[in-house]
């Protein structure tokens, strides 16, 4: 249960990245399947080579940004469809990730990672590490909230919302698109780097299907916590990431096989997409109704 919360908060960082592309930019970016692993691979191989873990983690995030830039350039300058641009980068990254790691699995068990202080003090799996993870995720959330409210951030929001309009006010939407993809994939790769250190290894297949986890977090979170303002949405995304992990936790506890998790993820996303449309969630007392009541009062 505690591990599920920890993982939820860790993967929440990735979900924030997916939120930036999927919701803010209105761009379904599949690069994340690759860039997550790239972040893990870069961080892990640097740590193995003796680079301090925080530096290696940041380098992992930076490598994700590069992956995002590649997708962005393919999409804007190359005029390749967004989905295909993401797939192309994702597939190419598979080979690159193997090159970076040199083999398909890179263990970090005896290395000094950013998780080592927590592990050595026996904090992992306890309330303190949950608190630390939560603070870290919230700091990133508030950084994103702030960024999106700046002049530059607003022009990114407008790029996803009405590209023609924001170009007519002098914004180079190619630049804002590439920048958002870079930031998004940097967050995803940062998450990959942290997850690798948390679980003690980087694996070339650790990113497969990750986009669904991100989408599930964003969609579940926003289905439960309504509100279009950025700071509500980013909070909802973090909550969604935690709920997703709890669902997985209970599914495993109920006897399902870890191999079934991809199927469960897909079913979850479909359910989160369809149920609100069928009015199911509307009947469940939720924040949505509380919100409405608050508005009426």
């Amino acid at each position, binding site marked *: 249960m505690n591990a599920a919360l920890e993982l939820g908060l860790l993967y929440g960082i990735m979900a924030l990245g997916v939120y930036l592309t999927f919701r803010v930019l209105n761009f379904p970016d599949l690069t994340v399947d690759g860039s997550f692993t790239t972040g893990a691979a870069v961080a892990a191989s640097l740590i193995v080579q003796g680079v301090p873990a925080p530096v290696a983690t940041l380098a992992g995030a930076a490598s994700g940004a590069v992956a995002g830039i590649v997708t962005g350039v393919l999409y804007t300058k190359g005029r390749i469809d967004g989905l295909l641009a993401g797939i192309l980068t994702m597939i190419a990254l598979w080979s690159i990730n193997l090159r970076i790691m040199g083999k398909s699995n890179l263990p970090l068990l005896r290395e000094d990672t950013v998780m080592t202080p927590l592990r050595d003090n026996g904090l992992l799996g306890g309330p303190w590490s949950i608190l630390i993870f939560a603070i870290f995720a919230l700091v990133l959330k508030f950084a994103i909230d702030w960024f999106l*409210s700046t002049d530059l951030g607003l*022009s990114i*929001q*407008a790029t996803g919302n009405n590209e023609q309009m924001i170009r007519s*006010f*002098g914004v*180079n939407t190619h630049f804002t698109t590439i920048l958002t993809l870079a930031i998004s994939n940097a967050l995803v790769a940062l998450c990959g780097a942290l997850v690798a250190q948390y679980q003690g290894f980087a694996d070339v297949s650790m990113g497969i299907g990750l986009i669904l986890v991100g989408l599930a977090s964003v969609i579940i979170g926003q289905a439960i916590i309504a509100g279009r303002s950025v700071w509500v949405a980013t909070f909802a995304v973090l909550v969604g990431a935690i709920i997703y992990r709890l669902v997985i936790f209970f599914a495993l506890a109920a006897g399902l096989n870890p191999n079934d998790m991809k199927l469960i993820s897909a079913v979850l996303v479909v359910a989160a997409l369809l149920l609100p449309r069928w009015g199911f969630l509307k009947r469940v007392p939720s924040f949505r109704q509380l919100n409405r009541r608050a508005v009426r009062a």
Partner: protein
Amino acid sequence: MLTIDHVTKTFFPGTVNERVALNDVSLHLDEGDFVTVIGSNGAGKSTLLNIIAGKIAVDSGDLLIDERSVKRMKDYQRAAYIGRVFQDPMAGTAPDLTIEQNLALALRRGQRRGFRLGVTRARRERFQQELVALELGLEQRLKARVGLLSGGQRQALSLLMASFTQPRILLLDEHTAALDPQRADLVTRLTKSVVERDKLTTLMVTHNMEQALRVGNRLIMMHEGRIILDLPEAEKQKMTVAGLLAEFAKIKGAALDDRAMLG
């Protein structure tokens, strides 16, 4: 101010769909000119605006703003000089952002956008002052999402956003055509007051001849990619809708006669 110098644009050249949208068009606007453009469908009015805004590249000819060629500038680069209101009331604003966020975006026209907060207290006060002029009560609803506004309100807001930073040129592309008569009238009045207040150099495309005569100091009629009539202020004031229709029939008839002769 704005000079269009022998501009030609052909769509789908070399195919059966080949269509000459602009045929050797030249036009010069002086500082503070408010020109209305009329013409039938496919006359090239919208192409003319798209070419000025940089949405469409010219085949030949040149475009100058303040004596500087802008032909090779991208649309978002030209936006530093050009404000634009589209026909579709949904096109000129970002629906998921609030009124104040939309205005903040418009405020930075042509300027660098960095890490300063988009909506500050000082800016909000300015936005409120600007919105009061619209007389729609929007100054009370700064935090409302623009998607919640009616078409007329959104178009009025688009007009304000396109003009309040005083761009060198204001392009209006049938911006009242999608509104009901009452709202269209409101937006027309706002257009007049906005343009007159800041003496904006304006090019307004319209389907509505009555509107074309009511506003502006010069009227242009287009037909089949050419400017076929150019009325300066004095003549425009004397002109009537019936007079315009008669002019149009006369010129169109002449064009048809030519073709019949050639055929």
